[in-house]
């Protein structure tokens, strides 16, 4: 009985990795969002702090969505 251990192992290894990456990106987005909120609340929305936070939010969530989208594309394709 031949068992393809490599395929099994890589499938599961990749799963753990993707989970951590996607969840991590999302959480970074939340952290950036929090920073953005603090900046805006301080009236410093336009400052460097506020702007970087906003960039961070957009990039993190975009990365998250991109990863998910790419994954689905791979599966559907």
């Amino acid at each position, binding site marked *: 009985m031949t068992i393809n251990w490599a395929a099994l192992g890589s499938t599961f290894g990749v799963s753990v990795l993707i989970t*951590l990456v996607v969840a991590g990106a999302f959480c970074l987005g939340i952290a950036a969002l929090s920073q953005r909120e603090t900046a805006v609340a301080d009236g410093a929305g336009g400052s460097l702090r506020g702007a970087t936070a906003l960039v961070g939010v957009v990039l993190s969530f975009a990365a998250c969505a991109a990863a998910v989208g790419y994954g689905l594309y791979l599966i559907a394709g």
Partner: protein
Amino acid sequence: MEHMTFLVTVVIFTALAFDFTNGFHDTANAMATSIATGALRPKVAVAISGVLNLAGAFLSVEVAKTISGGIIDEKAGIRPAVVFAALIGAILWNLVTWLRGIPSSSSHALYGGLIGATVVAVGMHGVDFAVVVTKIIIPAVASPIVAGVAAWGATRLAYRITRRSSASASGKGFKAGQIASASLVSLAHGTNDAQKTMGVITLTLVSAGVLAPHSAPPLWVIVASGAAIAAGTYLGGWRIIQTLGKGITTIEAPQGFAAQTASATVILTSSHMGYGLSTTQVCSGGILGAGKGGGTGQVNWSTARRMTYAWCLTLPAAAALGGAGALLADRGTWGVVLLGALGAAASGWIYLINRRRPIDASHVVDGAAADGSAPATPLAVVPAQAPAPTTTTAATTTAAA
């Protein structure tokens, strides 16, 4: 030939009935944590889940192919009657575990039924055990562990990264995250579970000579399977939602998010490889992992144990039921008819038992377990994020037990 076509039709309807029971068994997997933390209202959650299951059904057919061409050797002489026996066995197991609120694996019920019925009707050579081990047994055992590890890691990561975030940002963020990840789980579920029925129907059509061996599922099969699972998803599963949302561990939004992201990822990657795993087990593993990784690290091990017993029992039990059904079906037409009648009677009886103490949407969000039919567990402390309005509404409209 007339009666062959009628039997094929019956088998197809039975397969769709299995799909339907699969739907309400598995809604909980995707939506239990979101409902328990209040991220989504129960009815909205199941509606979303239904739609996405349907979409997922179209996304990939790898698992269907594992079933229709992989584990069972189509040329060994499988007859529609055998598939029928397998389905009856699987459906009965699904209904019994549903009644007890146990999130067992519909997938394993189906595989068990198929294997048992095939072995009885055709003999051991009808089953390709190498494929069974590679694409079913090993993923079955490994995937919940993988999901648990991934969820644990993601939970630790989530708490660490958002340690200094404001409550409002993380509250909003994780609620949105939960909705997104729950949606992904529903989609993933469609890629794995709706496939099973497609695979079974395709197998039936091949065994009846309607399709050539190794065919991919035809479009109408895909649509019908997707629709059946979506309908089952929307209509219920409150009993199991109650167990998954409250019975295993206290679920906070970040944990729910981590558990679901892990589950969706494991299911999607496995579906892509044609591994027919148990979405139920993967989601439960994810919730356990997230529970361990969370604030208290408390997990209700007795519920976990009950679930493990049900899991280990499922494939053999369904195999036994499927095998018994095949014995009956082998006797000829009257056997098949009797089998159908028994299956319908047992299902009706289970449904009636459920009506005596129904569990519905209102039972899954408020604090108290409505009746003793849910597993007796120390009730999880309702986390601070649970919105008050939902709890109040549920408390005032709790259905009479």
